[in-house]
């Protein structure tokens, strides 16, 4: 029963997903520039959030320093493009490879002594901060002054990944679609089953012949490589790279707030969560600036986060799905909400 549902994605879910992306694609043609750029950032953080979600939802490893991988991706693209004039595509590939290596090293360092749980999480944040401090003092990558991409001129170029705001809107929307499909595919693949078995009971899966040490390293480096792509795109969209704004603790927090608040382990959770939390943060900042009270935005956003984890323990998306189901008496969204949840 379990196997059957996993093997074939729910048709309703796929249709709903495609419909949502079609709507978002059409919105790209009509929205004003501010909303376009806001949604672009939302999509990129969704994409990175999906990689974070793979690591915790499938691999069972909590990372609170995902900005490390984002920063590696961003700097690979920026350095290769600005210093050597290479296409960002090279930067993305190099960033993926570097992030995978760094992720594997970090995982190897901690897992070889059975460090797990919250201890590993603290290591990820320490590594991210270490990298941020090193990059802040490294002249070749711009140190604190950062690196700037040359201003965009001429037509949109897919090869150089340069274009106007709308161009990046579609690039990042495509990235999210890619992320949703990749998540679904991995979940149904051999690795997905192995990783979930390892997440649920490491000792039992090892007894069954799963090389858990290897797979834990694999899931961390896979997730890191994925996040590096998002980081590279983020650097292009922002047009500049600074250690604090691409590797800071704030980025790590922004990455994981969306998936958790939206509903961890669900297909739409990261998108819905980021779609709500990131604009909420911007809105709170705008209100704080409007009334000339710095800090009001922090209080508002902080209270919203506390309320979200307090009142909606499973996240926003499952809450929406359940309430729609209880009102109409029909499961409109298929089993989408089950996604990667721990109960399956």
């Amino acid at each position, binding site marked *: 029963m379990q196997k059957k549902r996993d093997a074939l994605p729910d048709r309703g879910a796929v249709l709903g997903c495609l419909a949502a992306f079609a709507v978002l694609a059409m919105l790209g043609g009509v929205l004003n520039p501010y909303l376009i750029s806001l949604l672009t950032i939302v999509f990129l953080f969704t994409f990175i959030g999906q990689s974070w979600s793979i690591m915790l939802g499938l691999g069972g490893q909590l990372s609170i320093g995902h900005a490390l991988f984002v920063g590696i991706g961003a700097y690979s693209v920026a350095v290769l493009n600005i210093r050597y004039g290479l296409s960002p595509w090279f930067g993305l590939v190099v960033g993926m490879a570097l992030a995978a290596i760094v992720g594997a090293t970090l995982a190897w360092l901690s897992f070889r*002594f059975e460090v797990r749980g919250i201890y590993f999480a603290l*290591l990820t944040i320490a590594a991210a*901060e270490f990298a941020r*401090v090193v990059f802040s003092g490294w002249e070749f990558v711009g140190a604190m002054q950062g690196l700037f991409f040359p201003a965009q001129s001429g037509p949109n170029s897919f090869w150089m990944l340069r274009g106007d705001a709308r161009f990046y809107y579609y690039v990042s929307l495509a990235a999210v679609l890619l992320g949703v499909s990749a998540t679904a595919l991995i979940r149904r693949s051999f690795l997905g089953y192995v990783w979930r078995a390892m997440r649920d009971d490491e000792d039992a899966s090892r007894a069954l012949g799963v090389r858990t040490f290897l797979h834990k390293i694999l899931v961390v480096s896979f997730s890191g490589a994925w996040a590096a792509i998002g980081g590279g795109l983020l650097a292009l969209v922002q047009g500049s790279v600074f250690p604090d704004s691409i590797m800071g603790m704030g980025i790590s927090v922004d990455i994981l707030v969306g998936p958790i608040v939206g509903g*961890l382990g669900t297909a739409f959770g990261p998108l819905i969560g980021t779609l709500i939390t990131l604009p909420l943060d911007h809105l709170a900042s705008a209100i704080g600036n409007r009334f000339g009270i710095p800090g009001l935005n922090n209080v508002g956003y902080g209270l919203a986060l506390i309320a979200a984890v307090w009142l909606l*323990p499973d996240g926003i998306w499952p809450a929406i799905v359940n309430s729609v189901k209880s009102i109409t008496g029909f499961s409109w969204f298929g089993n989408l909400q089950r996604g990667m949840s721990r109960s399956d």
Partner: protein
Amino acid sequence: MLTLWGNVLASGILMGLVYGIIALGLTIIFGVIRIVNFAHGAMVVFGLYVGYCAGAWWGIPTIVAAVSAGALLFVFGYGLETSVVKRFVTRPHHIQFILFIGISLVLSGAQLITFGPDPRPSVSHLSFETIALGPIRLDLARLQAATVAAVMILALAAFLKYSTFGRFIRAAADNRLGGLMVGLPIPKIYAMTFGIGAACAGVAGALISPLFDAQPFLAVDFTLLAFVTVIVGGLGSFVGALVGGLTIGLTEAVAALLFAPSLKSALSYGLLMIVLIVRPRGFFGAKET
């Protein structure tokens, strides 16, 4: 040259004791409740502002301010645990992380609203006055901070070791279920522990108010500093927090002397990496995490 080194090492040890007490607050909360307090830095800054206000507005000496900050933060921590945190004790780590990020944001935001984003320099002149100890000169602010920190560490150790309630706390840290079965007041123990942890942060914050300009954005730095310290020392270990604090204090002092002062945090992270490679659980880390 030798005197210079002596001075640097002495000031490193003095700062290390203060770092130790910050880490102690984090580690005691983790050891008992199994929660990582990501709002720890914001609580340190809370204490920093108490120290600043006491000095700048009312002219109260730093030691008195430290005691009041400790009392204030204890009440705050106790209240926070009984009203909010206790509902999240059994939740997964990532949910707890979001909760504490939220608490941290609210605290920092409240500080921003009250005091504004500008750094508030201390009015205390203690940091300019020195005392000679043989060839070594120590500045009074550091000496005072380290002395109070040392007294507090000893008092806390005695409380945990000899008092009845301290024994309860250790029992709860050792085995929560067993404690429940023999009738320990677990909810009260948790609330007290969180209060004590917050009080450590508050005292440390007030103590360093003559050395640091109070600023809301320091919260992240202090949180990370506490993390590095407890990882080096070993999460959940009382002695580990102290040793970690001293190690980080010495490392920063030596780094500021040998390299640029701006590189001192890089060197402590570097030290952290070395510790990870050699002993991933820190000096005194427990086997089970």
